[in-house]
C-alpha cells in the first residue's frame, strides 16, 4: 500500500516537473540596423509607448520595464522616465499629437520650446515601443466547490501567450530612424487544480522585456 502511494506521489511529482518545464517561453529577437549608433555619458534615451491605435495601446508597465533594464548593469544607459518626458513636452507627445515619422520629428524640433527641452534632457535617442501581449487557445475547465467540510478545485486549464513588440530607434541628432528591433515571445501556461490550483505561468512579457532591453542597450551603445 505504501509502495502504491509512493508511485502515485512520484507520478504527480513528475507531472508537475514536466509542466514546470513546459511553462517556459521561446523568444526571438530580430534587429535591423539602418545607421551608426553610439552614446556619450552625458546623453540619454527616452522610451515611449505608441498609443495612437484604437484597438490596443502599448502598456506603460512594459515601457517602464524596458527602461529599468536598460538603466541597469554593465554599459547602463541614462533613461528618462516616460511620463516625466511626456509631461515636460506637453502637448507634443500626446496620443493624438506624437510624431509618427522622423519627418514629423524634424518639424517638431523646429519649435524652440521643444528643441530647448530636448536639449535640457540631453536626449540622443527616442525609442518607440509598439506592441501588446495576446492570450489565445484557452482550453480546459476548472470547477471549485465549497461545503461545510471544506472546499477544493479540480480540473485543468491551459492557454498560450504571445508578446510581440517593435522598438524603433530615432536619432535626435541626425533626425533619422537608425534601426528597428522586433521581439516575439511565446509561451504556454498551465493551471492544474488538484484541490488547490497550481498556476504555471509562462512569463512571456517579462522575457520579451529582458531580451529587448539587452538588445536595445547593445544597439544604442553601438556594439
Amino acid at each position, binding site marked *: 500500500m505504501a509502495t502504491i502511494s509512493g508511485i502515485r506521489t512520484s507520478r504527480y511529482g513528475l507531472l508537475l516537473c514536466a509542466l514546470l518545464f513546459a511553462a517556459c517561453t521561446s523568444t526571438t529577437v530580430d534587429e535591423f540596423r539602418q545607421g551608426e549608433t553610439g552614446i556619450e555619458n552625458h546623453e540619454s534615451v527616452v522610451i515611449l509607448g505608441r498609443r495612437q491605435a484604437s484597438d490596443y495601446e502599448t*502598456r506603460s508597465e512594459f515601457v517602464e520595464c524596458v527602461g529599468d533594464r536598460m538603466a541597469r548593469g554593465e554599459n547602463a544607459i541614462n533613461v528618462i522616465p516616460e511620463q516625466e518626458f511626456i509631461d*515636460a513636452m*506637453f*502637448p507634443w507627445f*500626446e496620443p493624438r499629437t506624437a510624431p509618427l515619422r522622423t519627418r514629423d520629428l524634424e518639424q517638431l524640433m523646429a*519649435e*524652440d*520650446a521643444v528643441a530647448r527641452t530636448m536639449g535640457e534632457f540631453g536626449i540622443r535617442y527616442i525609442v518607440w515601443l509598439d506592441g501588446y501581449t495576446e492570450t489565445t487557445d484557452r482550453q480546459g475547465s476548472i470547477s471549485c466547490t465549497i461545503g461545510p467540510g471544506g472546499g477544493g478545485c479540480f480540473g485543468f486549464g491551459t492557454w498560450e501567450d504571445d508578446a510581440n513588440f517593435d522598438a524603433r530607434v530615432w536619432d535626435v541628432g541626425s533626425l533619422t530612424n537608425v534601426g528597428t528591433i522586433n521581439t516575439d515571445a511565446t509561451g504556454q501556461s498551465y493551471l492544474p487544480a488538484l484541490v488547490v490550483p497550481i498556476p504555471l505561468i509562462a512569463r512571456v512579457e517579462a522575457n520579451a522585456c529582458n531580451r529587448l532591453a539587452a538588445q536595445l542597450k547593445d544597439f544604442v551603445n553601438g556594439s
Partner: protein
Amino acid sequence: METRTNTVRSRGKLVVMLIAATLLASCGVSNVTIEGSFPTPNISKLPLSVAVYYDEALRDFSYLEYSETGQEEFNIASGQSHIQLFNAILPAMFDNVIVVNSMEEAASSGADAVFMPLIEEFQLALPAKTKLDVYEVWVKYNMRLVTPTGDYIADWVLTSYGKTPTETFRSVEAGINEAAVVALRDLASSFSLTFSQVPEVNDWLASL
C-alpha cells in the same frame, strides 16, 4: 432577564437598520467628482491679453449616466476640473490672462478678447455596457472668442476623447475619473495647438 432580551432586540434592530441603509445606499446614484493634475503646455505664447469667463453652465457642469433600466447611476461633476485645466493652459498660451466674473467686468478689463468655453455634450462608455475592459469618455465643446464689448470673433467646436488602459481590477469611480482626466489632457493638447489655426481666430490675429 428582560433587560438582556431588550438589549438583544435593540441590537437586532440596529443590524436590520444598517442592512436596510446599506441596501438603500447601493440603490442610489454614485457621485464622481473628476480630479486630476495637468501639465503646463510647452509652447510659445501669443502676445495677447485674454479675459476668460467661465459661466455657470461650465462651473456647475455635471453629467448623469443612467443604468439600462433607466435609473440614475452616476453623477459626474467635471465643471471644476475644466476650470482647473483652462487655468493651467491659458497662461502658457497668452502673455496675460484675466479671469472675470461677468461680461461687464470683461469690458473694463482692457483685454484684447474674451474667451468663453462651453461643454455641449458628454458621453461615457462603461465596461458593464460595452463589454470591454476600458472606460471611455468623449466630450464636445463649443469654444467662443468675443471682443470685450461682446462682438463675435470666433466660435468653433472641439472634441476630446479619453480611455483607460485595459485593466480588470479597478473601481468604477476610479475608471471614470482616469478616462475623464485623459480626455481633459486631450482637450488641452488640441486646444493649445490648434487655437491660432482656427480660420476666424487666424483672421483676427492677422488684423491686430
